[in-house]
């Protein structure tokens, strides 16, 4: 129906690609931080390259994401009002504080990791600087474990928040769907959390690609991909078919399912410990799949609400 008398009933998309990309970056940042911090805290043979890659990716991703968020505002220069006027009934208002806290932790943690790395380098170079560098490093490094632990909580909060942001829109049939129809358990926070950890882990492994033994991480990746496939199957059966139609069909089946999940899963199982050169394509596809998932959910939810 395209009768324009009285102005065409337009269905503009309020949140477009910038928001989808921001949600993706927030997820990657949270996942990368968790990968680094959990390795730092609990791994016996602490893979320094993994810790460093994750620790550096997190602040960069979240800061770029926040910049995109601000640019997308109708009034970019008034973003500070989000901190001044608070509505505890609004998921976004709560999220502003969760993400701010996470960003602070991500920056501090990256700094601590960088300082330790720099100190290590200096020790190797000059024997004279050894004592001074070591003393300086240990002084601040006592903070590292608490920062990793508390930062992990805020990273979990950030990754989950990106789902809650959308699931709180009660009028949206795709975003507001419940997990297996259980009242009070929204679906998207679960899906976005798993996807965030998966994409963040993948991005971190790309950064640590020349690391000797990544088997444990690859196994974790396989488990996450399998969980995501199950979650998407649940989503597919929980909402109306229209959300997977039109231009969104290609994005979902090709981008999210084939490139983001099936291909990397098959490749990862095939080469879980032997084929080192599979890390890059597998992780690259997982990251792209994570981006496609955010685009799909953001657009389809608004197009077919």
């Amino acid at each position, binding site marked *: 129906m395209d*009768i*324009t*008398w*009285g*102005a*065409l*009933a*337009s*269905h*503009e998309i*309020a*949140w477009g690609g910038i928001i989808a990309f921001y949600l993706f970056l927030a997820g990657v940042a949270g996942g990368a931080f968790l990968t680094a911090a959990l390795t730092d805290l609990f791994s016996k043979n602490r893979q320094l390259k993994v810790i460093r890659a994750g620790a550096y990716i997190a602040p960069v991703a979240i800061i770029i994401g926040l910049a995109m968020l601000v640019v*997308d*505002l*109708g*009034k970019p220069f*008034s*973003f500070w*009002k*989000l901190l*001044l*006027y*608070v*509505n505890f*009934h*609004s*998921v*976004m*208002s709560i999220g*502003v504080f969760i993400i701010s806290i996470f960003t602070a932790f991500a920056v501090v943690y990256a700094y601590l990791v960088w300082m330790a790395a720099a100190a290590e380098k200096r020790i190797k170079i000059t024997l004279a600087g050894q004592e001074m560098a070591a003393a300086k490093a240990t002084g601040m490094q006592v903070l590292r474990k608490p920062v990793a632990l508390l930062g992990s909580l805020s990273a979990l909060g950030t990754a989950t928040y990106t789902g809650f942001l959308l699931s*709180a*829109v*009660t*009028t*949206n049939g795709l975003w507001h769907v419940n997990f297996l129809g259980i009242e009070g358990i929204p679906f998207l926070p679960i899906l976005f959390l798993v996807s965030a950890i998966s994409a963040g882990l993948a991005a971190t492994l790309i950064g640590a690609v020349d690391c000797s033994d990544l088997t444990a991480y690859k196994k974790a990746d396989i488990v996450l991909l399998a969980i995501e496939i199950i979650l998407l199957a649940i989503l597919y059966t929980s909402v109306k078919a229209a959300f997977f139609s039109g231009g969104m069909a290609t994005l979902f089946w090709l981008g999210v399912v084939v490139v983001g999940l099936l291909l990397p899963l098959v490749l990862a199982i095939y080469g879980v410990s032997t084929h080192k050169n599979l890390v890059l394509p597998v992780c690259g596809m997982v990251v792209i799949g994570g981006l496609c998932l955010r685009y799909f959910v953001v657009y389809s939810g*608004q197009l077919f*609400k």
Partner: protein
Amino acid sequence: MAKQYVMVIQASKCIGCQACTVACKFQNEVPEGQYRTKSPAVGPTGTYPNVKLYFEKEACQMCKNAPCVAVCPTKASYHNEDGVVLVDSNKCVGCKYCMTACPYDARFINEETGAADKCSFCYEHRVSQGEKPACVSTCVGGALSFGDLNDPNSDVKKLLDKYKAEVRKPEFGTHPNVYYIYEGVK
């Protein structure tokens, strides 16, 4: 006693003249290409001798349970003392969360202010001065009625008692304050 302002739209009396669309533009200085209200044609549907066409006035539905107010992170969207949903453009940062939440596509980002904008029932400039909204005052066919539902002598109360009225998308539980009477057109 608190007021409950409602608008009642009788589709059978609307001739699609668009005087409401234009009056709103005058009153509220809405930027070009943007609308606080529109009245697009619905139809024509059916085949002779049962062809139908009517106009449906679209604008903010002034929900009692407003999704836009619930999601707003800065409380820029709010209910005033008379139950009217308004936007404080100074508090609004333009995040568009309200636009994703509104099931009626009633909101837009004002190109000039950058803030969320929508129908205000002309509250500030007209209704609070005892006048009716600009669209209601100008309506040629008398299709639009406005008033306080808590006042038993108001036009809107009488219309809603007499006719079967509907709200748009009741399944969302938003409880709008804009009612549609489709008698004679549906």
